[in-house]
């Protein structure tokens, strides 16, 4: 066990620090952060500019082949970059889904020509991706999805509806899972496709979230045509491709609001007072901070353990589910506790009045979504119980009958 850098790692870290210092602002020194996840033209331009800067310096695809602009470096270098970037206020959110979830599946399943076309432009931030998975009838029960893909010569005709699609309105490409055969059991009739989001036959409607923001959408397909060359994996093997994407979602955290984090809470507790002293000196407050600190530290270190395994050529295991499970709930609890410390004044949702640019108020309304997106708490617990602890699967009454004979309603 050695948490110190090797000489190569230390050299790389130094290089990364130099790059970040020259090109980004440290957290806490930058302007107001965008906690709502809402991305307007200015935010989009800033995000694309940052991704382009990163890619030009070779930090966008650290483990990827050089022909795509990567470095072919070990996974541990990716960790080092992430550790350093985390200290800076940089707009990465809009690329999380594409780079973290969609591209690993593309790289794994697409032929080299298609990868060559799609990967470098995504790394440079020129093209944005979304994940077209969830449907009104298929959220936690993803394999219950109904969007149809029917073959017509060299093309597929898509009809149906997706929902909760983060960033669909900003996206150039989407990763779609659709039903190609309703006469077989539900997991066996699925196929994955790459969708050009600018084509006719796609309608995108924003969803107004409980937080007031709109970063995700409903996406409707009406006779959308996709060339067969844009199919990922074999026909009917879409469930397996989807699992690759979902596992990477849990590894990267997907589109999860992780603020307020432990350092936000510490900042708040230095500002506020309890009785006649700073909140951070109050015994009860200290207990809460300490408890959350060891959790957030534990998750961070668990991710490094996972990446150690990754760098030795092992697959990321289902134990990665714990990071998202813990962090989403913790952010919600910290937001709630922060408001509590503000007493009646905590009601003010006004950047002039609320501390830390009203982070805690925003997060109070945004964090319920984090416990649902990317696998609900309950689904993640099922995954841990079944895949890690090897406990029996839930009883699934629809598992072995043809999809078109499953009762609906």
């Amino acid at each position: 066990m050695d948490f110190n850098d090797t000489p190569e790692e230390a050299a790389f870290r130094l290089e990364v620090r130099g790059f970040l210092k020259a090109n980004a602002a440290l957290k806490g020194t930058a302007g107001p952060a965008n906690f709502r996840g809402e991305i307007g033209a200015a935010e989009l331009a800033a995000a694309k500019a940052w991704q382009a800067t990163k890619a030009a310096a070779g930090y966008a695809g650290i483990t990827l082949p050089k022909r795509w602009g990567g470095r072919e470096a070990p996974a541990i270098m990716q960790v080092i970059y992430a550790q350093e970037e985390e200290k800076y206020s940089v707009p990465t959110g809009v690329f999380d889904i594409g780079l973290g979830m969609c591209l690993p599946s593309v790289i794994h399943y697409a032929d080299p020509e298609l990868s060559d076309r799609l990967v470098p432009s995504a790394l440079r931030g020129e093209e944005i991706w979304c994940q077209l998975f969830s449907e009104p009838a298929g959220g936690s029960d993803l394999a219950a999805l109904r969007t149809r893909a029917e073959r017509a010569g060299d093309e597929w005709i898509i009809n149906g509806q997706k929902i909760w699609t983060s960033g669909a309105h900003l996206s150039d490409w989407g990763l779609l899972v659709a039903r190609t055969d309703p006469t077989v059991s539900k997991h066996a009739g699925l196929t994955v496709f790459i969708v050009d989001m600018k084509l006719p036959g796609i309608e995108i409607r924003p969803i107004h979230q409980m937080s007031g923001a709109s970063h995700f959408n409903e996406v409707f397909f009406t006779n959308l045509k996709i060339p067969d060359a844009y199919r990922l994996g074999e026909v009917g093997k879409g469930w397996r491709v989807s699992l690759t994407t979902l596992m990477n979602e849990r590894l990267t955290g997907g589109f999860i609001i992780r603020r307020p984090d432990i350092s936000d809470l510490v900042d708040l507790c230095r500002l506020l007072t309890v009785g006649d002293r700073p909140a951070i000196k109050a015994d009860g407050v200290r207990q809460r901070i300490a408890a959350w600190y060891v959790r957030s530290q534990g998750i961070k270190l668990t991710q490094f353990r996972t990446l150690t395994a990754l760098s030795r050529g092992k697959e990321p295991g289902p134990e990665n589910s714990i990071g998202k499970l813990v962090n989403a709930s913790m952010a919600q609890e910290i937001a709630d506790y922060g408001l509590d410390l503000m007493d009646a004044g905590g009601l003010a949702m006004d950047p002039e009045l609320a501390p830390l640019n009203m982070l805690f108020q925003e997060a109070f309304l945004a964090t319920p979504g984090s416990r649902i997106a990317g696998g609900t708490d309950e689904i993640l617990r099922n995954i841990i119980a079944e895949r890690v602890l090897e406990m029996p699967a839930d009883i699934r009454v629809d598992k072995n009958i043809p999809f078109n004979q499953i009762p609906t309603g």
Partner: protein
Amino acid sequence: MNFEFSEESLMLRDQARNFLGDRCSPKVVRQVLEGNQPYAESLWREMAEMGWMAAAIPEEFGGAGLGYEALCVIAQELGRVLAPVPFSSSIYLASEAILAAGSNEQRHALIPSLADGSKIGTVALAEGIGETNADTIATVAHNSVLNGAKWPVQDGLIADFAIVVARDEQGIGLYLVHLKGDKVDSSSISTFGPSHGQSKFVFNKTEAERLGRVGDHWPILQSVIDRAAILTAFEQIGGVEVCLDMARDYAKGRTVFGRPLASFQAIKHKLADVFVELEIARSNAYYGAWALSQETSYLPRAAAAARVSATEAYRIASKENIQTHGGVGFTWEFDCHLYYRHAKTLALRLGGARFWMNRLMDHLEAPTSAEERMNGF
């Protein structure tokens, strides 16, 4: 960077698991719990032959000099079986205190006998109910004579000597007291712990020898306690692993409402939560293990995080193990209660969760410079 134990450590872990699985069944623990034996003496002798006590002790003092990673691995295995031996008293505490505060003469006189297991040492710090700290210690040393009382002292009745924490002219001093003979009034205290005796010492003009380093020993003792906290965290993690396995295996084997108990989400989600606690605690402990072997400035913070996290994980795992078993989990015959008892024993031993959370906060509040933020985890 590497966040996993070395191959050698993993081999040692497998050896220790096989050996202890064979030699330290719950029956051995119950011999101590039910008052038939003060500790598992034959197990202790075999552990000494295998060189476990000597593992992290420098070769100069009769140790193997394998480093602390080896000791962490052994601690985890001892924790899995609730080993009723004075390993933590003698090795994490007494040996470390003498190494840190003793004169060279004292180290050469005492440590080799701890390394080969021929002598047992302990540290007497607590003075009854409530937090013991530099301000509260009432045991006094004057001209190498002690007056005061200490309780509970783990393994006090089987120890050959104790390192007693007392107030003196230099602040706080660590005093060597030989226990064999009748110079110390020592008595056994009943406890809920399953695998270690606790005792009370009363000092009435008791002769003692100050450990050699001049000056206040309190900071040295704090460092010893931090190190012991990391090793204890590994014992706690061993216990969490076993609780989780016990609960899972029982639930898989038990049929209720016509299907395995383990197929109900109420049970699956409960045990998934225990797994989460385990992994959080394990990661914090690994970081502690690294800090221990590196002498890094982060050691106090890493130690407090490892301790807070392991204590919480064991608390949850041991109580939910009983709950998963239902009624049988509440019987004397099932082993669930041994772990429940031991979880709280380890939680209190070096000071409770509230104490350690405050200690963690003290360390967290201090480093806020940009440089620390740049370097820190």
